[in-house]
């Protein structure tokens, strides 16, 4: 998208608000919704990948050293990863901290 949504005038819209650029949902920063963020304690993490599997937004990625971290562009802070984590190594940290 050339312009962000908030820069578009009504004249800029496609007829019927058709989205003519396929796959552009990936540009949507759902991370804006987040009030808490997942933080991994690598002391307790066993690198099982359960958090990666359960993340509903595919917002968890594997790091070079085999641990996991959230892609904060997309992570909504839903906490499912923390809920599912077998060793309890994920803590949901308040964003203001």
């Amino acid at each position, binding site marked *: 998208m050339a312009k962000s*949504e*908030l820069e*578009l*005038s*009504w*004249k*800029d*819209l*496609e*007829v*019927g*608000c*058709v*989205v*003519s650029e*396929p796959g552009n949902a990936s540009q949507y920063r759902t991370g804006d919704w987040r009030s808490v963020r997942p933080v991994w304690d690598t002391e307790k993490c066993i690198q099982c990948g359960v958090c990666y599997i359960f993340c509903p937004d595919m917002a968890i990625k594997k790091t070079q050293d085999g641990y996991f971290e959230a892609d904060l562009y997309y992570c909504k802070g839903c906490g499912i990863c923390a809920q599912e984590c077998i060793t309890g190594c994920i803590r949901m940290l308040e964003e203001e901290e």
Partner: protein
Amino acid sequence: MGERVGIEVSLAAAEAVKMANVDVVAAYPITPQTHIVEHLSELVADGELDAEFIPVESEHSAMSVCCGSSAVGARTFTCTSSQGLALMNEIVFIAPAMRLPIVMILANRSLSGPLSIWNDHTDVMSVRDCGWIQFFTENGQEAFDHVMFSFRVAENPAVSLPIMMNMDGFVLTHVIEPIEFWDQETVKQYLPDFEPVNRLHPDNPVTMGAFGLPGIFTEAKKAQDQALINSKPVILKAWKDMGDLVGRYYKPVETYHVEGAETVFLSMGSVGETVSLAVDQLRAQGKPVGQVKLRLWRPFPFEEFREAVRGVKQMIVIDRAITYGGVGGPVASEIRSALYLEENMPTITNFLCGLAGRDVTAEDYMAMFEKTEQMAKGKVRQEDYIIYGVRE
């Protein structure tokens, strides 16, 4: 020019849909629209019309299918009445927002309850603000002509909006009238092939019907409003071209004996011809009475309407629906708004009549004129309206 045949108006409308070479018909039968759907299903079954006839399980599905088929670029038709329109309501509002040029005939019937199958305009008035182009037909010939008109206007790339053709239930749908058919060559000349502005196709993927966040919703609505307003020149051109081709010129606002008229009736739909009879008789008595018929309802033809009633002292607005606890009928409330800033705004009396098919004769309209004359001697308040003929 085609031949003139005596035919039930519903069947004529279905034949017109066939001549428009529609691709998809998705509809659910409901009185008094049934004959249109039945005839179209026969035409498809008999191989006379090469189209998909989709016998859906409800009107909600009918309009949903129409949105899908229109989105892939198929010429799409449906029709319904009353409760059917109510059931498809959710999708009725979505079609214009997605700019899908579906053509729908609404065989006007009252909304329940009490349960009723007869004609009035409570169904169409329930979707007044749905964003479709809406107009009224007065007789069988108009209904036939306006099927072609509807496809041409709706599918015009500058418009790309659904269009609702109102046709009074029973009064039009179930009567046999002499109707001049168009020949196929004329249809071809008048109605180009459907080339959608956007089309769902795997070669060029697009998203239709995505959600709109608060940051874009207002702009989306402004664009939709403007699209409906901008459809008017296309509508006028389609009427002009039809006149040049078949000799019948239609206008957004029709007038009858308005020259020197101090009082005019305002009507929509099939009651117009009965009102004209009353106007004839009142004129014969030397009363300066005329008639204005509103054909185009959305976009509202402000300019033509104001021009038509300029200099008129009083208006008798006929409504076929009730706005409960409101300012009178929906048409009168619209008319008052349209004239609010005019100099010498006429007095407006509002009669609600012909609900659920109750007969209103020329004598009744003459009685409304008499009543209006009496009211003119007192002060007529804006919110006053009369439910004509109700037993006290």
